[in-house]
């Protein structure tokens, strides 16, 4: 128990060091952290700081307003039904983070389990699970969303399910590769000899050891999840039209791009910046972990 605890502490300390080193040396990481924190801030406080909360939730104003260009009253303008875009974006941040969190955590759980079981149990199980992993890696999320949409219609479940169906396999792949090397470790062998049941070994020794690279991958992926979810919502496969999701907001403005371009372009810019920030975060962490890329360098031959 204490060994496990200290191992855990060591791992946490390692991650902490990684973060502080990245913060010190990488402006890209700092930018990513700032963007991610802003996003989090918006997601939590969005409904409270939105200047027109009811409009943010999709209720058009009582008085006729129509689409208005950005002005001091409406910094990002209003959409065709006269709703304040800033409020909708602020409230939409929570929607975006919610989708990311659910998709990444569920796929992470499935992926870790499948990957480590495949690597640890080996044999037929390994073959079958790898075959499944490979098969599911081939599905693009948007096409699965299209199929789900044709069965169930629009809804949050379409976005979440289609992304989870297509995403877990990537984590399973990484988990599998890492778990295979862990399987050969001495302490796993020792635990096996001491007669610990196999599922206990899996949960005690294999899973904790492979989680770090998979989690770093997961952080890197958050940006891509946001992008894919936005694409699904943009196409009208996912959330319904009056939801303040950023992808939906871009779709809402698509019909008006010549007359009221801000309706589409501003929420789209938020998608870009958020995805960029999250990717920057993950990428600079990964680079920081890789010593090859750390050194000073010039063309020397």
């Amino acid at each position, binding site marked *: 128990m204490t060994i496990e605890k200290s191992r855990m502490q060591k791992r946490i300390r390692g991650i902490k060091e990684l973060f502080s080193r990245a913060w010190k040396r990488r402006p890209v990481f700092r930018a990513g952290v700032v963007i991610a924190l802003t996003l989090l801030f918006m997601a939590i406080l969005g409904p409270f700081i939105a200047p027109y909360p*009811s409009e943010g939730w*999709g*209720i*058009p*104003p*009582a008085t*006729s307003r*129509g*689409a208005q260009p950005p002005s001091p009253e409406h910094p990002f303008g209003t959409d*065709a*039904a*006269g709703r304040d875009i800033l409020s909708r974006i602020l409230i939409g941040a929570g929607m975006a983070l919610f989708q990311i969190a659910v998709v990444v955590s569920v796929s992470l759980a499935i992926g870790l389990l499948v990957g480590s079981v495949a690597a640890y149990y080996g044999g037929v199980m390994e073959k079958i699970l790898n075959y499944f992993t490979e098969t599911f890696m081939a599905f693009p999320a948007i096409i699965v969303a299209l199929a789900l949409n044709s069965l169930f*219609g*629009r809804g949050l479940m379409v976005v979440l399910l289609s992304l989870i169906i297509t995403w877990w396999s990537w984590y399973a792949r990484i988990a599998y590769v890492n778990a295979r090397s862990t399987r050969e470790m001495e302490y796993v062998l020792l635990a096996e000899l001491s007669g610990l049941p196999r599922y206990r070994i899996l949960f005690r020794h294999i899973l904790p050891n492979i989680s770090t690279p998979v989690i770093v991958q997961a952080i890197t992926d958050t940006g891509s999840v946001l992008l894919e979810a936005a694409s699904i919502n943009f196409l*009208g496969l996912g959330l*319904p*039209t*009056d939801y303040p999701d950023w992808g939906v907001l871009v779709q809402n403005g*698509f*019909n*008006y*791009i*010549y*007359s*009221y371009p801000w309706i589409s372009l501003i929420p789209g810019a938020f998608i870009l910046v958020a995805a960029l920030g999250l990717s920057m975060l993950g990428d600079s962490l990964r680079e920081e972990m890789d010593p090859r890329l750390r050194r000073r360098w010039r063309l020397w031959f």
Partner: protein
Amino acid sequence: MNRAVLIGLILIALIVAGLGYYWYSSGKTGPNNATASRKVLVYAYEDSITGIDPSIEFDTGLVVLGLVYEPLIYYNPLQDKFIPALATSWEANENHTVWTFHLRRDAKFHDGTPVTSQAVKFSIMRALEYYEKTGEGPGYIWEDLVRIETPNNYTVRFIMDKPMRVDFLVSASYGSYIYSPRVLEESGVKSPLDEELLKWFNQGHEDGSGPYMIESYNPESMVKLVKFRDWWGWKIYDINKAPDVLIIKIVTDDVSQENGLIAGQIDIATTVPLQDISKLLKKGFSVLNTTTYHNYVLMFNTRRYPTNITEFRLAVAHAIPWDRVYREALLGYGRIDNSLIPYGFPGHLDNYTFTYNLTLAREYLEKAGLLGKDLRVEIMYEGTYSQEALFAQILKGSLAQLGITVELKPASWDQMAETGPTVWDNPDQAPHMIINDWWPTLPSPYDFLYSLLHSDSKEWNWAGYNNTLFNNLIDKAWDLEGSNYEEAMKLYVKAQNIVYEEAPAIGLWDEIKPYVYNPRHVAISGEAFNPLYMYVLFIGHLEVKG
């Protein structure tokens, strides 16, 4: 070695290009030169084409059918006038049960054979029999047909089982197109009801008598039509003004149609973002605003709380800011009309209007004891129509003031057509409100009133409205139409009064269709479109330039 591969690739490319060029220049020189001066018209259509069987298609295929096939006569409801097509003259007996049509002698099918009375019988019987067999298609309009007689090649006689306006039936926009019986040989089937014939049509084959022939048919992207030089109409209209090639391009997206217009790739657009039309006019495009009988109707679920309460429905009707709908949702391209029958259509009356009055709406709610209750209602609408979407949003904002929460449920047409009828079996699962849109097949109020609110019309009566008095009134009127038209119209008014008082459905607006076109390529007169045959181009009334 790499260099060898590269040289090999270049050689292969050269050989392929050389062979291709040889094949191209040897085989295609003749037609190539002839096509150089062909006039082309690109007509953008806003939906994909669901099929082009002239007797069975009952949806977006009309845009193609109207150019490839012809009915016996056309009807222009705006001028209340019939226009001869394949038939030049017709008459009915005293009590309107036997109608005789005299066919044009010079009309030919695309295979070169003349249009005969046998062909008319063949075509219409196929529509009717197919409907009787499967329940599908527009053949139901011929339900009262007893038989068709063909006394000679150019005379056709319709025997009906009761007084009918057969002139309206033969001019219907669906189910009355005439084609050659030779389609059986061409497709290799025995029976006209064989599903293989339907498939054959839907692969892009045809044998009609209209001014255009199908050259290629890709229902998801474009239909290419070429001019039929032996069309009888070229004696009336200038053949040289008509395009040699007419392309119906499927562009479902408004912005894409606008892009196509700007890029010079589309000559006539059926739908562009309405707010951009003034800009397009400034850029030198022209617009033709056409009246349509395309009517948008808000239907209440009369079998579910709270929309089963008449006062609630009336409250909603008075809570809609109509002027705002007109300005923000329709942008002026539509006519606010609370009647179920569109403006200018037989049976339309102007006095069925609801005014925006929140106090009155509150009173209605109070009367029903609904004021202050936390009410939640759903509205389903077609998500791709920005007018409907904006209307639903405005409604949501307005009802919020009455303490009613509206949940928006955008759907595709298919989903709506599936959800709407569930009101009969499972009213609590059907949405409280649903926007239906309708355009007529027959120039009669019955078409609207029966389809939308008659309790026998389970498929389209999405209100679940079942009022025996109303049913009897319109059924009686329909029976009378053939013999006593004025009396029939009076009954229709009575029926409409019931609808206005109970409000199971309220008319929202009649669409005004702005066709934006490129005047450098085409000149269009108002007669090029007929509201009864939506989207069909009447080719004699437009002129393609250069």
